[in-house]
């Protein structure tokens, strides 16, 4: 055989060739798939045409040809005597899966690093306004926590642990090559997304090396599919409800009894008490409602061999569970690509979205926030005073939650445009295999915020002139991304080489402008009502402009041998305008290797394992986001006094400030066994952030607390597991389970040299060497001394004390960021019926419940209190966990530290697809109806509405995750 090869090799490579014909279709609905890549002997031999058919020429010796297509599982088929008919299945996660990394499209086999993918199926038709929230529990190493259930609220996404303190910890989001910010997801339409890849390690993030330190989420929107134009309609309708409350507050009888026990602070007399006892307002019910979600989308896809298009238009309308909150979104997309000649292709992806949010304040401790006021408002107060017909004025001075909800309007309208155009040219006349590509994209956002406090609102009556306030703020953000590359591909014998050199330029300009105006004295409770020309109602005007730029040059290379050994490497030099003149540029690199063990001869005896791959990568990636655009400069801001505006020092210079560098190591095993019945993956990673941006603590006698400096080191180290099993695979019934689980260990390795051993204390947390970031730092609360009702604390030496000492007695109690998390999905298919049940979970974190401090503090007894307070210590001998009311409550203790673990039934979906016979009868290509539940059940012990907190602390005013039941319909024609 070897001899034969050598002999053949010397002659014309394709001398002995044969022709193979066939057709590729979608396994789901049998529609033809155009543009599917066909590979034989390690090289691409062609693609399918508009009708899914193909005709390729391959060497006589080739026995198998493989097919790959974005969003579908790759398939290898043997060449028989007749034509080859292949049905591709959509991605469920296997080694044949095709992955989009932004610059390249790879088979999973070729990947030497760690990439998680989320398929269209998990994204489509989910009644969530912001796409990043949908990702929760879907991918290993990716911790996603939404702090809010407010329609359109973004989630906090952490990939492989928190690796930065002052810099951003959010991943880089790329949509069709254009960088966008997480907040923008609320104005993007997730139904347009075809695939989502989460790039985690050094070799996969290398191409985004100047921005990829926190991982990269690459989203590709749908491309056209050649053939007859196909239309699809997706619609859904849902209802959301506010969850039950675990932090119960008092009802009228308890509250009045408590007040009287505490000395009747309002001096209620018997008559007053009698009438108050008849009122029992549930404030939560007053401002919450059943939220309604509606979504409609119509899309069209089609084209021919030369031109492909995808177009969609959508409406998403969601009202929140708190009154006067919601999101409306109208969006449209057109993606077109055209091959002018066989060597020249160009295309444009464009998106326009318009959204309108109405929201309420949350995650604060402000008394005027309705979500705080529902806890603090006394139950014997009423929304409206029945005698006057106006808002009830509370005896305690606490603002009326109903009043603020009704008399405040916070509205943001956003116009979002994303466009990306590319030209791709093959340059065979210079060198075979050489190609050139340039792509230029713009992300534009126009944001218009109106803040209205009528003169009947609490804020409006407390503002300049006391007659209401009208604010308008606009924000104009433009980010250009230009990437130009020359790449060269060469295959010879069993070797394949890919080399590319790239130049990338990114510019971000943000302009903001706004004003606050006052005196809504007349009928108009909007901008027309502002009283001008009256010195009592002085307006205030603001403007700002900031800009940053990134310039990168880099080279990527990959090499494979026998389609079994894969190597890649990258080197890049990046410059950022944020840093000091001599520190703008930094170099980053990566190397990776992959070995498909199952392709080896010695492995051919192992029959039950179909595919086994080992891969590893190492490299460095930079971070420079999250710090100010002029972070290295001394800055003087405008300061006004007595009508004169002059410069005041607002930031200290640090010319040495430079890139934060994340060093990433990854090693992973992937296996497919028992003919795909079991897919297993395990990854180990070790990531060290060097030159951490840290606040070097300064003597306050400088007038500043700290200076952002490149000092310190933090490590994230962890394991990621995925297991997909096809439990039952029967003609009519299938049951698939996917489980993912991640363990992440975060540890600070070094801090500033001047930092004392205690670490950097900030509020209730500490950053200390040898411990995770954001470790809880509190005095240990040990309950109440039964003899005097005093709070008892435990000192680090184990002894008990009644003396509160937050300098010497504070200790570390766990971390706020969950070290264990993941998701479990079960999918069942029976004939046309499909059911999926998806749980997400996290555990091992301890969170601080600041919300509780405000309803358990005995000093606040004139407002409503937690039910727990009724068991406070009253007399010697009382055994309780709540100290006497006459002692000042200390907040920084473990009394308010709680277990943050939870498991949530994130999504459950039941669907029915019409069989093809029925479809033919009604002349439609597909029909699916479904019902879906989001967050229907959550298991947790945390005392609040919801345990999902992005920062490990519940500050207050919680807007919990929406619990939604939806019914939907998809029709293809």
């Amino acid at each position, binding site marked *: 055989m070897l001899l034969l090869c050598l002999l053949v090799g010397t002659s014309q490579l394709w001398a002995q060739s044969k022709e193979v014909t066939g057709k590729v279709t979608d396994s789901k609905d049998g529609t033809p798939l155009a543009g599917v890549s066909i590979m034989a002997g390690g090289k691409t031999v062609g693609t399918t045409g508009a009708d899914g058919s193909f005709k390729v020429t391959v060497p006589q010796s080739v026995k198998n040809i493989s097919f790959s297509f974005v969003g579908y599982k790759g398939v290898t088929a043997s060449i028989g005597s007749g034509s080859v008919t292949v049905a591709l299945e959509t991605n469920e996660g296997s080694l044949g899966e095709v992955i989009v990394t932004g610059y390249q499209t790879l088979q999973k086999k070729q990947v030497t690093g760690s990439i998680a993918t989320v398929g269209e199926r998990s994204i489509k038709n989910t009644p969530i306004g912001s796409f990043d929230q949908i990702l929760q529990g879907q991918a290993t190493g990716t911790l996603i926590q939404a702090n809010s259930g407010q329609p359109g609220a973004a989630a906090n996404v952490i990939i492989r642990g928190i690796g930065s303190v002052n810099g951003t910890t959010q991943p880089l989001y790329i949509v069709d090559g254009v960088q966008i910010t997480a907040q923008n997801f609320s104005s993007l339409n997730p139904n347009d997304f075809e695939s989502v890849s989460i790039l985690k390690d050094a070799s996969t993030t290398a191409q985004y090396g100047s921005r990829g330190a926190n991982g990269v989420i690459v989203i590709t929107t749908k491309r056209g599919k050649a053939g007859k134009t196909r239309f699809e309609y997706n619609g859904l309708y849902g209802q959301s409800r506010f969850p039950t409350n675990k932090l119960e507050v008092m009802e009228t009888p308890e509250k009045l009894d408590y007040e009287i026990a505490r000395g009747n602070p309002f001096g209620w007399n018997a008559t007053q008490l009698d009438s108050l006892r008849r009122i029992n307002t549930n404030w939560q019910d007053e401002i919450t409602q059943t939220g309604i979600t509606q979504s409609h989308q119509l899309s069209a896809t089609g084209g021919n061999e030369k031109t492909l298009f995808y177009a969609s238009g959508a409406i998403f309308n969601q009202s929140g569970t708190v009154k006067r909150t919601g999101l409306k979104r109208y969006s449209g997309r057109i993606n077109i690509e055209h091959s002018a000649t066989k060597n020249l292709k160009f295309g444009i992806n464009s998106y326009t979205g318009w959204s309108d949010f109405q929201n309420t304040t949350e995650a604060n401790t402000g008394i005027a926030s309705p979500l705080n006021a529902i806890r603090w408002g006394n139950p014997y107060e009423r929304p409206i005073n029945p005698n006057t017909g106006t808002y009830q*004025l509370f005896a305690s001075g606490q603002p009326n939650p109903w009043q603020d909800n009704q008399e405040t309007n916070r509205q943001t309208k956003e116009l979002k445009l994303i466009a990306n155009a590319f030209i791709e040219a093959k340059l065979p006349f210079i060198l075979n295999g050489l190609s*050139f590509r*340039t792509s230029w994209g713009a992300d534009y956002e126009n944001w218009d915020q109106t803040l209205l406090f009528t003169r009947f609102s609490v804020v409006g009556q407390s503002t300049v002139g006391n007659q209401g306030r009208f604010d308008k703020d606009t924000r104009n953000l433009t980010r250009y991304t230009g990437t130009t590359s020359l790449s060269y591909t060469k295959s010879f014998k069993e070797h394949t080489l890919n080399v590319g050199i790239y130049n990338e330029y990114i510019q971000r300009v943000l302009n903001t402008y706004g004003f606050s105006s006052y005196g809504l004295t007349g009928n108009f409770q909007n901008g027309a009502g502002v009283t001008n020309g009256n010195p009592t109602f*002085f307006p205030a005007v603001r403007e700002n*402009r900031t800009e940053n730029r990134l310039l990168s040059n880099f080279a990527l290379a990959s090499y494979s041998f026998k389609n079994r050994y894969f190597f890649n490497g990258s080197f890049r030099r990046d410059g950022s305008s944020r840093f000091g003149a001599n520190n703008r540029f930094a170099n980053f690199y990566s190397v990776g290797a992959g070995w498909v063990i199952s392709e080896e001869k010695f492995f051919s005896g192992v029959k039950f394992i179909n595919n086994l791959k080992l891969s590893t990568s190492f490299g460095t990636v930079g971070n420079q986001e999250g710090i100010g655009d*002029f972070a290295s400069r*001394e800055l*003087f801001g405008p300061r006004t006094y007595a009508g004169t505006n002059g410069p*005041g020092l607002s930031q200290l210079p640090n010319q040495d400030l430079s890139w934060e560098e994340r060093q990433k190591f990854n090693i992973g095993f992937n296996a497919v066994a028992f003919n795909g019945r079991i897919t297993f993956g395990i990854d180990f990673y070790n990531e060290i952030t060097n030159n951490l941006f840290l606040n070097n603590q300064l003597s306050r*006698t400088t007038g500043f607390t700290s200076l952002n400096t490149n000092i310190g080191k933090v490590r994230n180290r962890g394991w990621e597991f995925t297991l997909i099993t096809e439990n039952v695979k029967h003609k009519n019934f299938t049951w698939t389970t996917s489980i993912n689980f991640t363990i992440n260990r975060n540890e600070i390795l070094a801090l500033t040299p001047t930092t004392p051993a205690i670490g950097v204390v900030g509020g209730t947390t500490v950053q200390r060497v040898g411990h995770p970031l954001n470790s809880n730092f509190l005095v240990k609360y040990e309950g109440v001394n039964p003899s005097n009702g005093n709070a008892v604390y435990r000192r680090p030496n184990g002894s008990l004390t009644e003396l509160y000492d937050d300098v010497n007695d504070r200790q570390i109690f766990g971390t706020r960021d969950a070290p264990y998390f993941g998701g479990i999905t079960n999918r069942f298919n029976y004939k046309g019926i499909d059911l999926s049940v998806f749980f997400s979970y996290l555990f091992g974190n301890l969170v601080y419940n600041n919300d509780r401090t405000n309803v358990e503090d005995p000093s606040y007894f004139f407002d409503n209190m937690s039910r727990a307070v009724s068991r406070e210590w009253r007399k010697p001998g009382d055994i309780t966990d709540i100290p006497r009311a006459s002692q000042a409550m200390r907040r920084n203790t473990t009394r308010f530290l709680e277990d943050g673990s939870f498991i949530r039934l994130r999504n459950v979906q039941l669907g029915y697809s019409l069989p093809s016979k029925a479809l033919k009868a009604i002349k439609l290509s597909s029909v699916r109806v479904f019902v879906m539940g989001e967050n229907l059940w959550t298991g947790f012990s945390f005392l609040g509405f919801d345990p999902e907190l992005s920062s490990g602390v519940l500050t207050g005013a919680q807007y919990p995750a929406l619990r939604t039941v939806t019914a939907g319909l998809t029709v293809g024609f």
Partner: protein
Amino acid sequence: MKKIIYKISLGLFLIGAAGCKKQITINPTHLATLENAFKEMKDYENGLSAVYNSMRGVGYYGRNMSALPDMSTDNLVQTTESLVNFLEITDWLYTPQNGTVAETWLACYSIINNANIIINSIDKLTTPANQKQANRIKGQCLAVRAMVHFDLLRYFADNLNRNSTTAGVPYRKLSVLEESPASIKPSRESVSSNYDNIYADLNTARTLLSDIDVSINGNGPKYKIDLIGLSAIYARVALYAKDYPAAISNATTVINALPLATRSVYPSIWRDQSNAEVAFASLFALGEFASRLAGDVYSPPPGTNRSQFEGNPSLFAQIDEVNDVRFSTSVTRGFSTTTLVRANTRLVVTKYLGKGTAIDGIVDWKAFRTGEMYLIRAEAYANTTGQELNALADLNTLRAARIQGFVPGTETGQALIDAIALERRKELFMEGHRWFDLKRTSRVIDRGTISSPTTQSQLANTRREWVWPIPQGERDANINIQQNSGY
């Protein structure tokens, strides 16, 4: 044609790939850097705004130097309307971790730093032609530097005597831009050394402010420190230092320049309708710094109407409600700006209701007034052998100015000292003095019977809390700074 496109694209790519530092050099447009912040004398003139502006924050005149010294004593009583945001301060529960303490420390040094930036660089642009202008700017900055260090001393030093060798505070003379910020780790100087520096700065300021181009405040309100304001600062410092001759002479300068207001004019001082008596005020105004002065004591606008503290009834029982103009100027019985009814016994603090007839709480902070100067001079005379009659005369002049039909008092000896102290409570109620007056005299607070939310009644003279702790953040960053004893 196609080849030309390819060649052009390739050329562009190579140009791009070459890279260029210029492409990533951006200068801020809405903020200034050091090169363009101070280019001419006018910039220093404007830079004074940053100095005075920084004094209005909550860490200084916005709260901690204005309202807190009354909140933490027996001048005020916390009510059930309180948000209890300052219980650690008002009930003397603070530790080195206390946020308000840290905020005060930082705010003071921030003001000082703003002053030092001007003081240490203005000479570069000073010429014989603009010398007088430079004097006017630099003199004010020196006065601010001295005053703010003195205020730090009042909170953070234990013993305020002129020759005390106990720990004072670091006296900062260089701005942060003149040294490497991370290397600045000053130790505490002695109180005596602090006084030396304060006096030196005040004296230099006096020399400079005596030779200036144009009047600092003209005929308008004294929003900036001129020679009169400087004398007022000097008098207060000298009183604490028990430097009575200097206290007497400086107080006299202010008294002569700014006579006491009449009873009819007196209330309008608090409404910013009269400039009478005011030697230096920090401007709080709509459209510029619309912060509610003393809003943590009583925030009056209708939407808020929160009376978190009331005037201590035992103090107001000693003020003649009918004849003493200070009763009705300081508090109003049962005051409310909404339909909420408060008991007539509630002494709502209405000294800072607003300008004119406004009730928004936005009103100037009167940092130095002639009323205080009379009391400084009276106390200085009373402590000077043979000057008791002068002390009594000053006390009587003040009382006669405030109280309708006042019959001159005849106190002597300790009774006179006590009478002056009581008069300070009445005259300087809610003007940021009580805590410091107690600290430099009896060092005892007794609130008598207390009720929730107040948890502490007594502060004995042995308690550590008479001196604020050095903030833990400062201690962590600065190895050279020593903590006050007891913390």
